[in-house]
């Protein structure tokens, strides 16, 4: 189906089902239960899951396939966001032109940066991309304030022209982003007993874009072009002596992943029409690196998992505080309880960065293939227990 092989089709279908039913899957706990705080099925976070999923999928096309580690990819996301917000300010609140412009602008931006940076490889390439991104951030935060809004970020105002729309609504408010009148923030709720599920237009819009991106990524992975990119990672020397020019291949991969980032940026602006300069900072680029590695670089599903994992951590795990912990360990004797809470305390709540750092190190050390490899190891271990006599060969390349 869709020109994909059976295995990939089922992967795509699984992802499609997961995203479509995410409002149910992410809200497994009744709203009145103590575990309700682990529910992640609210619009903003669900949107973030898929938008950062797109970002990571795109990053993975560059890093996972060609092995070029860009430390400046957030710049493209930022540029995309700015482009989209400008579209909202000047043209109108429809998200499609905004997203389109975001993709185009970040594509152009990545052509320029990629053309220069890709003249070097290895850590030199990483430093070049880092330098470009830091320059973009520094300028966006300061001298480019008229274009980027500087510290406060680029935001909509009541007196924006919006030539194809209205400057303000009848009630005197700024109009909200919409898809041909369907507002991104519109939400319907479904209540089943104590459970509550939220369906948000913005989420489903983003999710459809994510599925399209995912599909495109599968096609790229399975295409001769994708194979060439993996060949670049494997042996550039052989590429050159096989009559292949690596430069346009890497540049194409760079621009494609830049456009993915632009799409993510445009979607972010569509969900929430404000673009801040911080989303271009090198730490933001570091975040997408974390996502990709954590999930499994070079695998199809890994980056999406990694993005979801980190965003869940950032938004849910970070909210666990001592009171919650005391609740969990209340069954222990008092002294024990305090001790356990004391031990866990640095790792939870605002210490989530610490946990993330440790986890990330663990993954790089023990699971270079990320969560995907972890999953494969577990499943092969389970299978291994079922048929113990089967000798275990080399782990298959992660798909």
């Amino acid at each position, binding site marked *: 189906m869709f020109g994909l092989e059976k295995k990939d089709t089922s992967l795509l279908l699984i992802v499609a089902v997961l995203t479509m039913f995410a409002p149910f899957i992410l809200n497994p706990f009744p709203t009145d239960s103590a575990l309700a705080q682990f529910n992640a099925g609210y619009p903003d976070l669900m949107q973030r899951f898929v938008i950062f999923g797109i970002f990571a999928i795109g990053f993975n096309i560059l890093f996972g396939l060609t092995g070029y580690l860009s430390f400046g990819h957030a710049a493209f996301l930022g540029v995309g966001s700015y482009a989209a917000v400008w579209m909202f300010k000047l043209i109108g609140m429809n998200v499609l032109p905004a997203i389109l412009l975001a993709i185009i602008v970040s594509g152009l931006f990545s052509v320029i940066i990629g053309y220069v940076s890709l003249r070097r490889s290895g850590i030199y390439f990483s430093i070049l991309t880092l330098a470009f991104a830091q320059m973009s951030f520094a300028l966006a935060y300061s001298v480019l304030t008229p274009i980027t809004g500087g510290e406060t970020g680029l935001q909509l105002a009541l007196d924006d022209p919006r030539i194809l729309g209205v400057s303000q609504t009848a009630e005197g408010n700024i109009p909200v982003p919409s898809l041909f009148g369907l507002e991104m923030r519109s939400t319907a709720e479904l209540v089943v007993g104590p459970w509550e599920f939220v369906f948000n237009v913005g989420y489903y819009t983003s999710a459809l874009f994510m599925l399209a991106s995912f599909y495109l990524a599968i096609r790229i992975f399975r295409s001769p072009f994708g194979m060439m990119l993996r060949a670049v990672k494997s042996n550039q020397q052989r590429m050159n002596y096989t009559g292949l020019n690596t430069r346009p291949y890497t540049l194409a991969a760079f621009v494609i992943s830049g456009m993915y980032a632009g799409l993510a940026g445009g979607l972010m602006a569509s969900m929430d029409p*404000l673009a801040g300069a911080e989303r271009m900072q090198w730490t933001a680029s570091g975040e997408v690196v974390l996502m990709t590695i954590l999930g499994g670089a070079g695998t199809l599903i890994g980056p999406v998992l990694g993005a979801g994992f980190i965003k869940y951590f950032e938004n849910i795990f970070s909210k666990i505080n001592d009171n919650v912990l005391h609740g969990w360990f209340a069954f222990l004797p008092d002294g024990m309880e305090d001790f356990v809470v004391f031990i866990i305390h640095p790792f939870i709540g605002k210490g989530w960065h610490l946990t993330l750092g440790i986890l990330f190190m663990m993954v790089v050390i023990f699971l270079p293939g990320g969560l995907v490899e972890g999953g494969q190891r577990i499943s092969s271990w389970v299978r291994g227990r079922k048929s113990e006599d089967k000798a275990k060969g080399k782990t298959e390349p992660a798909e």
Partner: protein
Amino acid sequence: MTKSDVTRRGVLKSGAMVGAGVALPTIFTASSAAAYTNEPTGSSVTLGFNVPQTGPYADEGADELRAYELAVEHLNGGGDGGMMNTFSSKALKGNGILGKKVEFVTGDTQTKSDAARASAKSMIEKDGAVMITGGSSSGVAVAVQALCQEAGVIFMAGLTHSNDTTGKDKRANGFRHFFNSYMSGAALAPILAKNYGNDRKAYHLTADYNWGYTTEEAVRTSTEAMGWETVAAVKTPLTATDFSSYIAPVLQSGADVLVLNHYGGNMVNSLTNAVQFGLRDKLVNNKNFEIVVPLYSRLMAKGAGANVKGIYGSTNWHWSLQDEGSKAFVKSFGTKYGFPPSQAAHTCYVQALLYADACERAGTFNPCGVAEALEGFEFDGMGNGKTLYRADDHQCFKDVLVVRGKENPTSEFDLLEIVEVTPVSQVTYDASIFGGDLGTCNNGA
């Protein structure tokens, strides 16, 4: 899904299953069932405290959170009541707000506008917060304020000093208790003129972002009006850590005053560097060289250590104020936490109380009702004397403190001394000078 029911959250929480089968699906229409966003229908109301818990302002955020927790305790009738006893409005009874118990959720702004909006959205969408408050920078305040406007909840700004928050970027749903750059300039200038004379030459170092620009502008205008000359104004990168190359040329320029339009880590570093260069021991134009820090914060002063001694600046509030409101607040905060509150803590505490009071007086949590109750509201007993929440731009007008780094601090909290309480009349300005448009109140309906 036989027992399912498609409806709005508001209905769910009040009538539980009453509406089952009656309410027709109103899918994909923004809230028609509820009167306004996150209308509290149970026995409690949820407030969202959005403060920096990670990142460079985490300590300030922690102090804000302490203040909020204290405010919630007082609102629910716990503790000694703090400033509720000195507050001129007596609408609050210590039984929560409008009889509903106050609960709160917290979010981490990370002092990034994106992250701050994400955490605010999560509190609105997931936890049903009906009001968002807090924050430790203007970028965040403006970003979150705009979000609250869209979402239809009230935003009570925390520490934000840029003119933009209630100027160019003001919003009908947003309210600021904290003072701003303009007021700092207006309050500082006369004191500077009095202490340092009218013919000074000032050199500005300005953090290269919105807040820096407005602060420089404010201090420049007001000091120049006093007869000072501005020799130069140099922008410094936000990410700078070593300011030596900006500070070294100051003496060459013939300036005899250095104004550091910096906050947070920038301020700590630039001030430390300036003192290292021995600027304050120098004699220029036969005058002692002086340094001015327009916006002081005690937590930041702590970072700069002994370098703040004798340096003038302005602040929103300080724990050594001797009015009844301040004393009551310092007492309950100090008793609970063991040290005096910062100005960020004070402003956050006051904002929480003001919001609660406005709800009581309006008789509703509806943001438009609350906004109306806050607009033009005059009150006293909250630590800054008589205060007005101006209707035109949702900015509080109150006395501004001019402070100086203390020469002989008795403790690690006792770093600043109050030089003058500038009366509100001197710092009031016309609401139109910063442009912007409040728009109309949005309740999300």
